[in-house]
C-alpha cells in the first residue's frame, strides 16, 4: 500500500493535476475568505469555508477521474492485479494519496484563522474543526469519485459522472424536499431504495439468493410499515434520506459551530463504503 500511495502522490505532483487542484481550491477559499472575513470583519473562518463548498464539487472530480480509469485504459491494472498486493490495499493507497492532495490546500488555509486572530479575536477551535470537517467531507467526495472512476476506462465520463453525483450531494436537502409528502410517494421511494440495495448485493455476490433475501426482508418490513405507520411513512423517508445530507452535516460546523460527530460518522462511513465498493468493482471486472 505504501508503494502505491507514494507512486500516486508523486504522480499527482509530477503532472499538473496536483498543482492545478491546489491552486483552484486555494483561489476560491481565499476569495470567500476575503469577502467574508477581511472585508466585512466577520470573525469565523468556518463560515467563509462553507462558501467554498462548490469548488469541492468541481475540483474533486479533477482529482479522482484518472484514479482508476487511467489504470484500466493504459492496462497498468495488469501490473497491480498480478502483483502480490490485495486490491483493497491498492484502492486504499490511491484513496489516501488523493486525500493527501486534498489536504494540501486545506493545510494552507489553516493560516486564515491566524490572520483573523492577528487582527482581532479568532476562534481557533471552531475554525480548525471546520477545516477538519471539510477534509472528511472531501474524503467522502473522493471515495465517490474514485468509485465512479472504477466503473469506466474513460476519464471524461468519470469526471462528468462524479460532478453529477457530487452536485446531487451538495443540493441533497433540496432534492429531499422535492419528494411529495404522500404515503404513496414514500412507498415508492422506499421500494426504489430497497431495489437499489438488492441490486448492490447481487452485484457484489453474483448470487441471487442473498439479493432475494435482502429484497424479501425489506419488502416484508416495508409492508409492515405500510399497514401500521402509513401516515408517518413520508416523514420516515425524509428523515432517512436526511441522514445522508452532507450540507446539513457541514452546516453544523460552519453555521452553528457544533462539532457534529454524527456528521463526521456520515463522512467516514460513506467513504469506507465507497472505498469498499471500488475494490469490489475492480475485483468484479476479473469476471466480466
Amino acid at each position: 500500500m505504501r508503494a502505491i500511495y507514494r507512486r500516486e502522490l508523486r504522480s499527482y505532483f509530477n503532472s499538473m493535476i496536483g498543482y492545478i487542484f491546489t491552486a483552484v481550491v486555494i483561489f476560491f477559499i481565499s476569495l470567500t475568505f476575503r469577502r467574508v472575513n477581511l472585508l466585512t470583519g466577520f470573525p469565523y473562518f468556518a463560515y467563509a469555508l462553507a462558501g467554498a463548498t462548490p469548488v469541492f464539487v468541481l475540483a474533486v472530480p479533477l482529482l479522482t477521474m484518472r484514479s482508476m480509469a487511467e489504470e484500466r485504459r493504459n492496462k497498468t491494472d495488469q501490473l497491480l492485479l498480478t502483483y502480490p498486493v490485495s486490491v483493497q490495499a491498492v484502492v486504499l493507497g490511491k484513496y489516501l494519496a488523493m486525500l493527501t492532495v486534498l489536504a494540501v490546500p486545506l493545510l494552507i488555509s489553516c493560516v486564515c484563522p491566524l490572520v483573523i486572530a492577528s487582527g482581532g479575536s479568532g476562534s481557533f477551535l471552531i475554525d480548525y474543526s471546520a477545516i477538519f470537517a471539510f477534509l472528511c467531507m472531501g474524503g467522502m467526495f473522493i471515495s465517490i469519485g474514485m468509485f465512479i472512476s472504477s466503473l469506466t476506462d474513460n476519464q471524461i465520463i468519470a469526471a462528468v459522472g462524479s460532478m453529477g453525483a457530487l452536485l446531487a450531494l451538495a443540493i441533497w436537502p433540496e432534492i429531499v424536499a422535492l419528494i411529495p409528502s404522500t404515503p404513496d410517494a414514500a412507498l415508492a421511494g422506499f421500494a426504489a431504495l430497497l431495489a437499489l440495495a438488492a441490486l448492490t448485493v447481487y452485484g457484489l455476490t453474483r448470487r441471487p439468493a442473498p439479493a432475494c433475501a435482502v429484497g424479501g426482508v425489506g419488502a416484508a418490513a416495508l409492508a409492515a410499515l405500510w399497514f401500521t405507520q402509513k401516515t408517518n411513512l413520508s416523514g420516515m423517508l425524509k428523515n432517512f434520506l436526511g441522514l445522508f445530507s452532507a450540507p446539513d452535516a457541514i452546516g453544523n460546523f460552519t453555521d452553528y459551530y457544533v462539532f457534529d460527530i454524527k456528521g463526521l460518522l456520515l463522512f467516514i462511513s460513506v467513504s469506507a463504503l465507497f472505498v469498499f465498493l471500488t475494490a469490489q468493482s475492480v475485483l468484479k471486472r476479473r469476471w466480466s
Partner: protein
Amino acid sequence: MIEVRNLTRRYGGNVAVNDLSFTVERGTICGFLGPNGAGKSTTMNIMAGYLGLTDGEVLLDGVSIADEPERCKRMIGYLPEQPPIYMDMTPEEYLDFAAELRGLERGERAEAVEDAIRLTGVEDMRDRLIANLSKGYRQRVGFAQAILGFPPILIFDEPTAGLDPKQILEIRELIRSLRREHTIILSTHILSEARGLCDKLVIVHRGNLMADGAPEELERSGGGRSLDVVVRCGDPELVRSVFAELPGVTDVSARTEDGEVFASLTRSEGEDLRERVFDACVAAGFPLLTLRPSDASLESVFIRLTSGDGPDDADGETDDETDNETDGDADDGADGDADADNTGDGGGAREDTPAREEDAEGGGGDESNL
C-alpha cells in the same frame, strides 16, 4: 512448475478458453501458439491472476491461484501483451516501485532493480521518462519488470513484439539463460522463435487445446521435418530424380529460379539425410548452395491445427491440405483466408509464415520476423 487443469473461461455466452489442460515442468520453456483471438492472452491473464476462471484450476508449484492468489502472485513474473508501464515515471523509478510492490526487502530491492536494468539493456535510458522512450525500450522496461527479483515462474505474452532484430536476439538469449532456474511460458506467433526457444509447444485454437508436445514431436505428427536444398543446376527434373533415389527420402518437390533449383525433401522418421544429400550432389556434380532443415513442417502443422472451427476439424490427417483450403475459404474468419493462401502454396521453399500473414491481417505489422 505450472499445471493447468480443465481451464475454462466464458465471457457471457462466449467461450474464450475451453477445457484447456497442460503442464510445464520446471526448467523448461513452453511456447504458447495460436492465431490471434485463440485465447492465448486470456489463458496467460488467468495464470497470472489478472482474470478469474470460470472452471478448472491453475496450479503453480502445487498451489492453486484461485485459493491462494497472493502466494501464487509472489511466484510469478508477468509481461502482458501491452507492457504495464507508467508513462510519468523513469524506468528506474518504475522498477523500484514494482520491486516494492512485489514485496522485495529494501536491501535486495536496489540490487534486483540493477540486475533487471542491466539484463534488459536499459541502462542508458534509466533516467528518462518512459513516455519519451521508443516502443522497443518500453517493451524492455516491461520485460525488466517481469524478471524483477527472478520469480520462479515467468509468463511472457509476446515478449519480442515491437523489438528490433538485435533486441529480439538479446531477449531470446536472456529467456534462454533464465531457463535453468525458472519455469517459463511464452506466447508468440513467430514459429521459428517458438522452435528455436521452446522445449515444448502448446497450440490452441478458439480456446481449445489442439496439440501439446516438443516441437520435434509435433513436426513428426505433421509428417516429419523436411530438408530444404538449393543446388545450381538447370534441370529440376534431374535434381528431383537424383534426390528421390536416396534412401530415406519419401517425397521430393523442386522448382527452379535463376538457374538454381530449390528442392524440398520429405524424409522418413529418424533419418538424417544431410550427408547423403551432400554425397549425392558431389556425385551428380551439382554445386550445393544451401542445405537446411525446413521451417515449413511446423508451419504446416500449425496451419492444419488452426484453420478449422475447432477441435473436431483437427482430427483429419495431414494429407487433406486441399480440405483445409476449402475450410479456410468457407470460414467466416479472416484467418481462414490467410491459411488458405498458405496451404495453397504447396511444397518448396515457403516464404510467408503464418505470423506474417496474421500481422498483415491484424494491421499490427510491427512484429519483426527473424
